[in-house]
């Protein structure tokens, strides 16, 4: 598909050239510098980027894509979903099911027809909803369609009934909590408490091999870049401005003849599909998906990333995902008991002191420099 010239002009038009320089630099670092520093220097040298760092960054890139999805629906459309972790987890389960089927007869029980946990539960045949997941294209499609369909149905019911604000946030929490309880059950057929794990390879590439890990990392970086362009395309359109109008004065939008229900449904569904895609890329890199990914706290954390980075900016969402998760990795190693307190304090500090997040702080500092100069 080629874009109409003025549509692509709109996508890349900006009054801030630094945005594109910054994005270009980020792309260069993520796609060229880090892979080169992983492959070329000998391990142990000061310049070498170890494999575990590559995988860690790959994880962060998936979180950043998830944060972008959250920013679209919250920062631009004003819908504070506290259930986005559910869409991420569903995408992850879809990919996990594919990798589960790829194990074949290499499992503990050597059963080519059934995943280990089903053999353990004494199941005789594969449930119908596992059909098709031995095909990569099917699993990839489901990673997008299942979260998208859930968001569409859930959103249609909620937005049509004009459920907004904190009420909507609460029912999205309830949604992800209900899914967590459901996925904990062995009878659901998704591995219960343990979830899906012991994956061997993806499309024939062993997951333990550094080159596979690097490829997954690169793919995550690429997907983040494409997701950024896609979301930017949406928010720079007239539809994007209607979203902001819905965020600021929803009932007024109706009297202009637009349907806020349709606008929010579009943003929510697209956002859920992006979250599913992020989840599908995340699971092969961490090697496990279990019901704890549905836990309400996870979804709240996503909102914190976006709030810390600065909502309604896209770049802020990505920065927030990296900053908070970087801090989490460091602190859960250095002082694990402090992490949750710090996360809570961070959220309060940002809400009270930095309503526009880190990006807003940067803007304030710049404006002050201009004034003082």
């Amino acid at each position, binding site marked *: 598909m080629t874009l109409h010239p003025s*549509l692509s002009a709109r996508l890349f038009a900006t009054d801030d050239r630094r945005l594109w320089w910054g994005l270009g630099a980020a792309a260069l670092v993520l796609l060229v510098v880090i892979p080169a520093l992983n492959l070329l220097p000998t391990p142990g040298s000061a310049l070498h980027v170890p494999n575990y760092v590559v995988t860690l960054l790959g994880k962060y890139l998936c979180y950043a894509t998830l944060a972008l999805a959250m920013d679209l629906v919250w920062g631009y459309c004003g819908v504070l979903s506290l259930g986005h972790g559910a869409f991420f987890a569903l995408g992850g389960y879809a990919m996990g099911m594919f990798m589960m089927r790829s194990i074949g007869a290499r499992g503990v029980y050597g059963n080519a027809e059934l995943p280990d946990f089903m053999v353990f539960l004494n199941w005789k045949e594969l449930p119908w909803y596992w059909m098709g997941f031995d095909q990569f294209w099917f699993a990839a499609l489901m990673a997008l369609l299942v979260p998208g369909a859930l968001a569409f149905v859930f959103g249609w019911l909620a937005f049509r009934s004009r459920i907004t604000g904190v009420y909507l946030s609460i029912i999205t929490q309830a949604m992800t909590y209900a899914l967590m309880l459901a996925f904990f059950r062995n009878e659901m057929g998704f591995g219960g408490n343990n979830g899906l794990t012991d994956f061997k390879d993806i499309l024939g590439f062993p997951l333990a091999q550094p080159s596979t890990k690097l490829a997954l990392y690169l793919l995550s970086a690429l997907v983040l870049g494409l997701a950024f362009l896609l979301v930017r395309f949406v928010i720079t359109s007239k539809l994007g*401005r209607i979203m*902001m*109008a819905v965020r*600021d*004065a929803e009932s007024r939008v109706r*009297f202009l003849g*637009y349907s806020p229900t349709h606008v929010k449904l579009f943003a929510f569904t697209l956002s859920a599909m992006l979250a599913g895609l992020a989840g599908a890329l995340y699971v092969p890199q961490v090697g496990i998906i279990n019901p704890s990914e549905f836990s309400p706290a996870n979804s709240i954390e996503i909102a914190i990333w976006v709030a810390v980075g600065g909502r309604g900016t896209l770049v802020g969402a990505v920065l927030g995902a990296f900053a908070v998760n970087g801090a989490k990795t460091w602190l859960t190693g250095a002082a694990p008991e402090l992490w949750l307190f710090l996360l809570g304090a961070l959220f309060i500090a940002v809400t009270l002191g930095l309503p526009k997040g880190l990006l807003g702080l940067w803007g304030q500092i710049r404006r002050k420099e201009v004034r003082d100069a």
Partner: protein
Amino acid sequence: MLDDSFEVQVDEPAGPGVPAAGSILYLDGVSVSFDGFKALNSLSLILAPGELRTIVGPNGAGKTTMMDVITGKTRPDEGDVLFDQKIDLTQLDESEIANLGIGRKFQKPTVFEHLSVFENLELALKADRGTFATLMFLLKSEHRDRIDATLARIGLADKAVQRAGSLSHGQKQWLEIGMLLMQDQRLLLLDEPVAGMTDSETEATAQLMLDLAKDGTRSLVVVEHDMEFVRALGAKVTVLHEGSVLAEGSLETIQADAKVVEVYLGR
């Protein structure tokens, strides 16, 4: 988008033919109550195409509730509300009614504060309202010309790129009127359009209303407290009181009416 299912039979045969025939807006026996309080009490009102009508009345007379009923924000408990002789507005929601050609300016000016003045007008611009149509929408030069013309007309040409939130109260009123113009509606409902305006702004607004009504393609209903403004419009006046019509006629007739004087001055 409309089909025959929206057509209704008007129940009482008030003479030969359809009672709403020849009207752009027809309200008959409309009642609305909130927790026992009758905001509208069997209100009836007929507006002819191209007519300019002013509505006055003390606070709580039901002026805003009447607009809420016409624009689909409030469902009446009983009564008929017909647009263009036969479209039953009580069955439609706000956006469907807006797309039929009914525009509204609110009592408290409501503009999209985080968008620029230009973008506020762009959203109001008459164009396909569908989700995918707006996603792929491209501003053509004729659109730009229309927006520029409206900007000039509402005196905000030099504020096009400014955030709407930074405008003064009077300028927001004008912007909202501009948004109504961009929608190109057949029936305009304006709730206190000159509240918070200076005298010269009020005069200019009156002139704009008269201009809009002049060519007969639009009908206007203006709710206003400012008697100077009502006089400047020189249109038929309807006085509402306790949810129904108390009197109707020219401003002079109304002001001479003993009931009206009592309602306004009697307590």
